[in-house]
């Protein structure tokens, strides 16, 4: 059985926290460049230009592209032929977050209790950690820091099967329109469809990470993505919400089998600074 040390995991998580906050993923940057070419509003083009320029500053100066360095979600896919040695895996990941946010001068934005004691934990922990056991002997770690502003505009709804495609479209459109300028458009929209109440939110968040997960889609889903993107970009919200053509850069859908009586839909709204970094050990 392959052994991986928890210290190694801590180091990798720390590096990924910094990397995700400093380096805008290539696919987002390309999408922004394309949006710059397609935006009709002059003000909108100016906004997109500044977003691209900002990513350049973050990259060259090793500083976070956004002051909101997010709540840190970590997806860990653990090969079943692995054994983690020298300590607690969950603690190793949290220690990585602690270390990365300190070394990277990233903002710590987590409060220790949501209602009665909103006191900052001062190290951005605890992270939101999801474990998955998969075949093989490698460990894949994906770090996704997500800002509170766009997270607040995400939504989940349990539709009825009879609501169908129209119901899904209506809910996605309502969510995006309501998010509007608050979610720092141009947005990237992750849509989860299927599964259960608890799992559909994860489907939606993973939909944002299409590049990492190589999500399989048939023509129906690809068509729905295209249609939603087209409709969203007719809303007029535009870059920074100041009016324009490009309200979203992309819509990604992630589906899962569901119950005969259910049609859960979740919309994970990401700002233009969709941040993630991953490594396979």
């Amino acid at each position: 059985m392959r052994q991986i040390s928890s210290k190694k995991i801590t180091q990798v998580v720390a590096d990924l926290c910094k990397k995700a906050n400093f380096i805008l993923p290539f696919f987002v940057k390309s999408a922004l460049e394309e949006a710059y070419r397609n935006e009709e509003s002059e003000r909108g083009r100016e906004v997109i230009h500044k977003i691209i320029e900002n990513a350049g500053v973050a990259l060259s100066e090793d500083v976070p592209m956004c002051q909101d360095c997010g709540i840190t979600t970590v997806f860990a896919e653990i090969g079943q032929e692995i054994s983690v040695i020298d300590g607690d895996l969950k603690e190793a990941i949290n220690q990585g977050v602690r270390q990365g946010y300190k070394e990277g001068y990233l903002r710590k934005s987590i409060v220790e209790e949501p209602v009665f004691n909103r006191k900052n934990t001062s190290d951005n922990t605890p992270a939101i950690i999801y474990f998955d056991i998969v075949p093989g002997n490698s460990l894949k770690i994906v770090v996704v820091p997500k800002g509170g502003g766009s997270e607040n505009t995400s939504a989940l709804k349990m539709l009825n099967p009879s609501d169908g495609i129209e119901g899904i479209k209506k809910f996605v459109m309502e969510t995006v329109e309501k998010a509007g300028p608050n979610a720092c458009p141009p947005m990237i929209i992750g849509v989860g469809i299927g599964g259960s109440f608890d799992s559909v939110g994860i489907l939606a968040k993973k939909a944002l990470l299409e590049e990492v997960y190589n999500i399989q889609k048939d023509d129906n889903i690809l068509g729905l993505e295209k249609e939603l993107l087209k409709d969203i970009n007719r809303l007029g919200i535009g870059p920074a919400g100041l009016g324009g053509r490009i309200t979203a850069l992309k819509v990604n859908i992630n589906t899962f089998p569901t119950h005969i009586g259910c049609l859960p839909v979740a919309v994970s709204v990401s700002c233009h600074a969709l941040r993630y970094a991953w490594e396979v050990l």
Partner: protein
Amino acid sequence: MITITPPLDSEMVKNLKAGDEALISGTVYTARDEAHKRFFEAIMSGYSLPIDIRGQIIYYAGPTPPKPDKEVGSIGPTTSGRMDFYTPLLLKHGLNGMIGKGLRSPEVKKAMMNETAVYFSAIGGVAALLAKHVVKSKVVAYEDLGPEAVFELSVEEFPVFVAVDCYGGDIYEEGKKCYKR
């Protein structure tokens, strides 16, 4: 391009229209969720605020910690709507300007008309770039809140749009209307 140097007075505010681009130079104060809550509670309990907000601009922001060779970390605007509940009271107590991102409630817009105040929008998510317009930063209240503390910032040509003016004009509504199909 309009140049703004706080403190603001009613005449300056009246000249600003939604959609104008402006550059702010001088002192602004940061305050976000928890600082607003404390401001609100202080006023309601009859205490004075830790800073004199009369004529001032509050920037809804919580910066990242500065690297050792820098004066300030990344510092972009946070969502203003979360401060809506507290805002009319602060405007009544002399606040004249706000910088943030996103929509304001009808109550805030009404209070802005009554009190002659302006709401500026900075571009959300361009925090590394905006940091280049902040030349000095120090905590002046609520240090225990970390990034949510009140920072006094000295800014130079800090770029903003007039998002809501004192006549009820709203750049978000007008912009969307122009491009909706």
